């Protein structure tokens, strides 16, 4: 890094008017990007009367937690009026096993595809990657039938299965591309020493895999937590995930619209992935870019 040159340039640059313009535009856009989050937060702390008398950006006249309490515990999603807490835990029960299973499968698959190639393994990898670019609408109906046949329709286990099936291509891609960059000599030397398939994985590759595990777990967590399509098609009633419940809550047409409750629920639905993003953002970004630059 040429930190010294950067510093001197930064030191002298702000004197120029053009620099002020650049900073002005960047800050303006930062405010535009932040606006929805600010609006959601402000609205969630207002009373219904306050919402009607004020506007999007006006501060609450009185900061109240009513919206949050109702969203969590007693708001109506469709016919149920137990708030979204149950759906929040549904999402947790879905996302944790789905992330763990798909990441482990991806790690082993990536290991095989990078270090134990066989005839046709590259072709298989391409077929699998191609598969993750299809619109999921094209597999929705048969999957619904299959889940019905095996008795997993409308269960959390069914959703976990679906997320593992359609997430494994991505996790395999992450690990494969990571392991390809590790010298083959390392594995060859271990093979000569008599180390077997699993020994090489656990002793040599696993200890240096922490960064890619982070990327994979965060990518999968975000994708699965945020999913709506599979949630709305393959779950019903008590097993629905958070995104489906939020949509039901917002679109419930009975009674007076309570925007503070809607906004509190929306923030709760966004909170886990936002926290992950703010604390491990670099892994999230690496996943985003890795998802684009294919191997």
């Amino acid at each position: 890094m040429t930190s010294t040159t950067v510093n001197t340039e930064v030191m002298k640059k702000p004197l120029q008017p053009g620099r002020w313009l650049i900073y002005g535009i960047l800050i303006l856009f930062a405010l535009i990007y932040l606006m929805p989050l600010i609006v959601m937060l402000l609205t969630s702390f207002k009373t219904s009367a306050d919402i009607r008398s004020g506007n999007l950006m006006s501060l609450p006249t009185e900061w109240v937690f009513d919206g949050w309490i109702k969203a969590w515990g007693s708001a109506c999603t469709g016919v149920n009026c137990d708030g979204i807490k149950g759906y929040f835990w549904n999402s947790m029960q879905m996302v944790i096993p789905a992330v763990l299973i798909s990441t482990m499968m991806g790690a082993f698959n990536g290991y095989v595809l990078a270090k134990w190639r066989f005839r046709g393994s590259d072709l298989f990898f391409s077929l699998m990657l191609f598969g993750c670019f299809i619109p999921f609408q094209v597999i929705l109906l048969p999957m619904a039938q299959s889940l019905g046949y095996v008795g997993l329709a409308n269960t959390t286990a069914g959703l976990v299965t679906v997320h593992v099936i359609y997430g494994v291509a991505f996790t395999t891609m992450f690990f494969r591309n990571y392991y390809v960059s590790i010298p083959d000599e390392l594995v060859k030397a271990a093979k000569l020493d008599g180390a077997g398939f699993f020994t090489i994985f656990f002793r040599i590759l696993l200890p240096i895999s922490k960064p890619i595990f982070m990327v994979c777990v965060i990518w999968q967590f975000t994708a699965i937590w945020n999913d709506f399509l599979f949630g709305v098609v393959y779950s019903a009633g008590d097993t629905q995930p958070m995104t489906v419940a939020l949509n039901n809550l917002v679109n419930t047409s009975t009674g007076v619209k309570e925007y503070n409750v809607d906004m509190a629920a929306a923030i709760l639905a966004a909170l886990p992935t936002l926290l992950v993003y703010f604390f491990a953002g670099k892994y999230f970004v690496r996943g985003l870019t890795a998802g684009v630059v294919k191997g």
Partner: protein
Amino acid sequence: MSTSHVLSEPVIRPQSKRFSLDGLQKWLPKLVLAPTMLITIVCIYGYMAWTTLISFSNSSFLPSYKLVGFKQYIKLLDNDRWLVSSTNLLIFGLLFIAICLVLGIFLAILLDQQIQQEGAIRTIFLYPMAISFIVTGTAWKWILNPGLGLEKMLNDWGWSSFQFDWLVDPQMSIYTLVIAAVWQSSGFVMALFLAGLRGIDPAIVKAAQIDGASKPTIYRRIVLPCLRPVFFSAIIVLSHIAIKSFDLVTALTSGGPGYSSDLPALFMYSHAFTRGQMGLGAASAMMMLAGVLAILVPYLYSELRGQRHD
């Protein structure tokens, strides 16, 4: 004696062991990959074939395998709602991709000027990407609410004639989807281009500077052409997001008013799962697949050809 015995032991044992292990070692990698192979073949390619079959059948509430040829496709192309949704996808997709690209490149270039607090600003631009489209849709539904949202705020701030009712205007509702989707995804394009800009050899830029080229010229003539692969990747990912857009339209407009902001993904869902027209839904899914392939196949082709040249 004892040392030579110890030494000889590991030499002999692995050899005899390796002979029997060799067979297993050969199969282990394939065995580990087998579940994923099965999943790929059955749940991706098998299901695609299955959906194709349904699209040629007269399935309604329940799947039936009585083949009726292209009847569902003819019905689909005759369906006004389908025409609206595919036209909408075209409008939405083109605008969404174009605005995201322009905004993303613009912000990336600005951020590339040795900005203080670059990390913080980048984090702010990119955070919407971590949020579900359902949340995005919910937030924008409130902001774009004609009576209480943006309109009221600007009226309160003194612009009393300001009116913004796109959300309930059948002519304009599709553009509200563009606004929300651009807000969500433009930061991602910015991140892609920023990474691309950082990857450019500074020597080329230096050389151009010495030749007396101005900053805009350097970007236009040298830097942006270098970023061609980033353009392609961004367009592929954005069009993929546009074609599968289902959550955003569900949360923001539910396809309304009427079906004025409907998109193929929503059309497919509502026909296949709530209106009991499975055959028609399957046909619309196949049309979506065709759309993705039309974009993906030329891209992969050029990608593979490019690799062979290197």
